[in-house]
Every structure is written in C-alpha cells, then in structure tokens.
C-alpha cells in the first residue's frame, strides 16, 4: 500500500511530466496498433482472395510478387483433369488505373470461378459474365467510385469495357476490383496463355500432400502451397508485417525514451527522499521496485490509453469512404497482448538506468544536501 502510495504520490507531484510520458507511450501504442492492424487486415484480405473456396495455391516458384508469377494455361488444364482435384481456377492479377483512381486490382477469371459463384449479385447475373470479352463485373466499391452501373461503359487503363454485373463481397480488394474474363485480361495485360496463380480445391483434404508432390513432379517451375503456408511464407506479407512492427517499434522506442527521461528526472529530483527511505530500512531492491513500479504504471496506463486511441482511430479510418472495405477494425487479442507487453518492456528498459542510479545513492552523502 505504502509502496503504491509512494509511486502514485510521485506521479501526482509532477502531473504534467507524468502526463507527457503517458501520452508518449499512448501515441506510440496507438500508432503501432493502427499500423499493425491495418496491415494485418490487408494481408488477410489479400490471402482471402486466394483462398476463396480453395485450399491450395499454385504459382511460379521463386517469384517475389504474385503479380510477376506466370503459370501456363496448359498446367491449368492438366491439373483440372487430375481425379483428386474438384476444381482448379486460374486467376490473373493485374493493376490498372482509372481517371480518378490510381490503383484498381484487376482479376482475370473464368466464369466458373468461386468468387462469382459466392458473391451476392447487386446487378446482372453470373450467366452474363464471359459471353462478351469486353464485359466486366465490378465490385460494389469499384462501381461506386467509377459511378458505373450495369449496362454502362467504363474506362479502365486505356480501354473501355462495359459493365455486365456488380457484385458485393466482404473482401476490400475484391469489392474495389474489376473482374474480367481470363482471356480478355490476358490480352489486356499481354500475358497470353498464362495466369498468375491457380487456386485449387480438392475432393478430399487428405490428398493435399499428393497434389503437392504431383505438381512438384510435373511442373518443377511451379510450387503448390496450402493457404496458410502461403500466407506464412509469402515474402511480401513478411515484409509488410515486419515493416509494421518496425515502424511501431520505433514509435515505442521514442515513447520509451520519454519514459527514461521522466524516470531520470524522477530519481534525480528525489535523491534525498530515496536516501531517507534507505535510512529507514529500504533495501536497494525495494528502491528499484519503486522506480520500476513507477515506470511500469506509466507504461501500462499509456498502453491502455493508447489502445483506446488506436481503436478509435481504426474506427475513424473505417468511416472514410475511400478506405471502405480495406480497413479491418477487428483488433486481434494477440496484438493487444503483444503491444501491452512491448509497452511494459519499454517502460522497464527505460527505468533501468534510473533504477540502478537510485540503488547506488549513498544515504550519508544525499542527506548532507539541504
């Protein structure tokens, strides 16, 4: 009780200083939470595209980015014909821009594709897709920002397409994307006879190892990965996640420096008080506990405030129309735990030097200060 009182009293004595260090931790925690959540959401969305109604993704071995992957059409046909395969859908990814939107993801797919089957159709029907090589289906968001409806013509890149359908999907990339017949996409992106990936659903999950082995044998230049395997290993995802944590970590480092500064001040301005505690029987360990307790309290308080700010910020981002569907506000519990632990660690690290300094204060000398 007295312990806590000593800690809290000292924080309350220097309210502004305490608030500044709490704010420092809070803002870095908020930044970290936001960045990590947004990027993780993006990663999940992107892997969601690949895994819709499929278990396996096949793409070119050793490509850094799926946009550069090239899988021959012949492989699609062969793999489709394997008895263990229920369906194998080629998907060609491309990036296009429209007059007012710099990046629109373009999906070249067949009319059998799961995305079309599973989406809810706002305009047009699935039967309309693929009949006309120039007919595209738009995600709802894409339709909104291109102000397009079924029957209208839209300009994408340097070509004009007409809209045969509008679909609503939960996935941000798909919802803001354009779906073209595979052959049109191949022509449009100059990738005749190939797709970026094949997404595969097997008749039985038990056949996954067999499929992987068959692909390895028949197509040494391709690689087949299970969905989570892909999400784990895809280098772009790794880079994104690492970036997120690194940026967040830098923020936390700054917050930690703030705590360190506060704690140094806290010890230096309290040398006499610490000496008094020593004379009254406090051990160096008890002094250190008090200092660490103070910084831990600041950090945890900062982390909680930061989590609240970060969550509020994510909700605010979600409300921005242009980001609609791209921002996932569901903060993962694991992220929350990691962020709090990191904040706590930062606080403790920041208090390391001040705590050591405090335990070395010699009562005789300190008590001679008036």
């Amino acid at each position, binding site marked *: 009780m007295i312990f806590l009182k*000593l800690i809290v009293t000292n924080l309350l*004595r220097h309210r502004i200083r305490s608030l500044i260090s709490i704010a420092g931790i809070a803002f870095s925690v908020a930044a970290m939470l936001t960045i990590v959540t947004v990027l993780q959401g993006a990663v999940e969305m992107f892997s969601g595209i690949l895994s819709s109604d499929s278990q396996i993704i096949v793409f070119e071995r050793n490509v850094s980015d799926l946009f550069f992957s090239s899988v021959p059409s012949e492989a699609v046909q062969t793999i489709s014909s394997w008895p263990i395969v229920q369906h194998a859908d080629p998907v060609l990814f491309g990036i296009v821009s429209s007059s007012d939107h710099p990046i629109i993801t373009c999906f070249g797919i067949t009319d059998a594709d799961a995305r079309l089957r599973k989406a809810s159709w706002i305009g047009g029907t699935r039967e309309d897709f693929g009949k006309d090589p120039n007919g595209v289906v738009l995600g709802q968001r894409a339709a909104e920002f291109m102000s397009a409806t079924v029957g209208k013509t839209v300009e994408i890149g340097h070509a004009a397409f007409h809209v045969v359908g509008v679909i609503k999907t939960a996935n941000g990339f798909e919802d803001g994307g354009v779906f073209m017949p595979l052959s049109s996409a191949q022509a449009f992106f100059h990738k005749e006879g190939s797709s970026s990936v094949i997404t595969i659903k097997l008749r039985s999950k038990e056949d996954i190892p067999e499929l992987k082995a068959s692909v390895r044998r028949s197509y040494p230049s391709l690689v087949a990965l299970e969905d989570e395997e892909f999400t784990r290993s895809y280098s772009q995802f790794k880079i994104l996640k690492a970036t997120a944590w690194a940026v967040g970590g830098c923020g936390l480092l700054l917050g930690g420096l703030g705590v360190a500064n506060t704690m140094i001040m806290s010890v230096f301005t309290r040398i006499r008080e610490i000496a008094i505690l020593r004379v009254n029987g406090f051990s160096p360990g008890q002094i250190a506990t008090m200092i660490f307790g103070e910084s831990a309290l600041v950090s945890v308080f900062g982390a909680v405030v930061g989590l609240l700010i970060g969550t509020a910020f994510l909700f605010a981002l979600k409300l921005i129309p242009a980001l609609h569907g791209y921002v996932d506000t569901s903060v993962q519990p694991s992220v929350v735990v990691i962020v709090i632990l990191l904040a706590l660690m930062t606080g403790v690290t920041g208090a390391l030097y001040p705590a050591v300094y405090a335990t070395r204060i010699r009562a*005789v000398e300190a008590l001679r200060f008036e």
Partner: protein
Amino acid sequence: MTTSNRSPTPPIVLLATDVWKSYDDGAIAVLRGVNFTGFQGETVALCGPSGCGKSTLLHLLGGLDSPDIGRIAVNSRELKPFGNPLHLLRHEVGFVFQLHNLIPDLTLEENCLIPTVAAGLDRKAARDRLRELTDRTGLSHRLGSKIQKLSGGERQRTALCRALMNKPRILLADEPTGSLDESTSAMVFDLLLEIVANEGVTLVMATHDRTLAARCGRLIEMRDGSIHEPF
C-alpha cells in the same frame, strides 16, 4: 554478551574502537582515533564545535558509512566495512535528524509506516505500534495529516515516532531539536527523553544545546578528532 544478575554495569550496545575517518582522500581528517562505549539504556549527549565530526560519528555508529580505520560494533556485532547495514537500519538503530526528513505529500501515518513496510512487519502489529507511539507523542489526532500541514514540533515528533517504529534498541539523534524554537525544542526533548527511558532505548544525541546536553545521563566532548569525557 552475558551479564551476571548482579552486574553493576549494563551491557555495551555501541562500541567504537580507534575509529579514524577522513574525507577527500585524507585531506580532511575528521575522526582521529575515536573510542566510545555506549551502554544499554543510557542517554549520551555528544557535544563539540561545528564541524568537529559529530554527525560523522553518528553515521558510522548507524552503519550509514564505514570508518577508514578502526572498528564499530553494534549490539556486540562488528559492522563489516562497506557491508550491508540493512538489518541494522531495520531493527537495531533509529535515526532522527535536525531536519525532519519526512516525505512530503504522504501523511503522518504513512511516513511512520515506512520502516515497517521496509522490514516487512505485519500490518496489524505496525498499526498497533503506531498508535502506541503517536499516543505517547500526542499525535494520534493528526495521523491523516500531510506532512506539509504539520508544525515544526509535530514534524520532529513524527520523525521520532518513525525512528522507533521497529523497536530499535538504539536511537541516534543528530541535533533532533536544532531547527525548533526554544520552547518547542524543550517540549520535544522532554518527550524524547520520556520515550527513550520508557522503552529502555540507548540514546546518542549530537547537540549544541548545553541545556539539553546537561539533561542527558552522560556528556561527551568531541575535540580535535577524538572524544574527551569529563568525569
């Protein structure tokens, strides 16, 4: 140490043997061969001109510092040079200084409980002890007051309570009433003597006040780095 029932002298609780202490690498030689024996339950006034080394000696006796040469023993146990005085400070000696050295923003009660928290004393026992001491010093109605709200005399009495919380057998007081006006000083000193006598505590008090010194059982003079005892 064993004492026979009929021993006329009480046990020795403080012993300084040929203690030397200097500062600034010997440039300031303060104590030059101090010998001192403190018996259980006696009250000793330590007098001498300013800067003669009274505080220095008290610090050495309480384990806050170590002598360059010589030995200090408290309760028959010799202090290790630069050893850990934790047990000493928690259970064997209490300090009172000229400045009250209480922690501002904490209450009188909280300040007094600090030594018991440090020593891990049971809360109930700590509170009982606090009540006992504050009753005796007339502070029981001010338990919840912050230090800033107390008068000088009340602060000094609080410091006295705090020093005695863990029932040390020795009280080292460094001009305990030095910052108080004459009448308050006399009142606080009365209390101090009363409690010390009541608890059988050994008191060693540095003071400039000859009137106070005269009321102690024994008076020792410090001069030129050593102790002279007028008999």
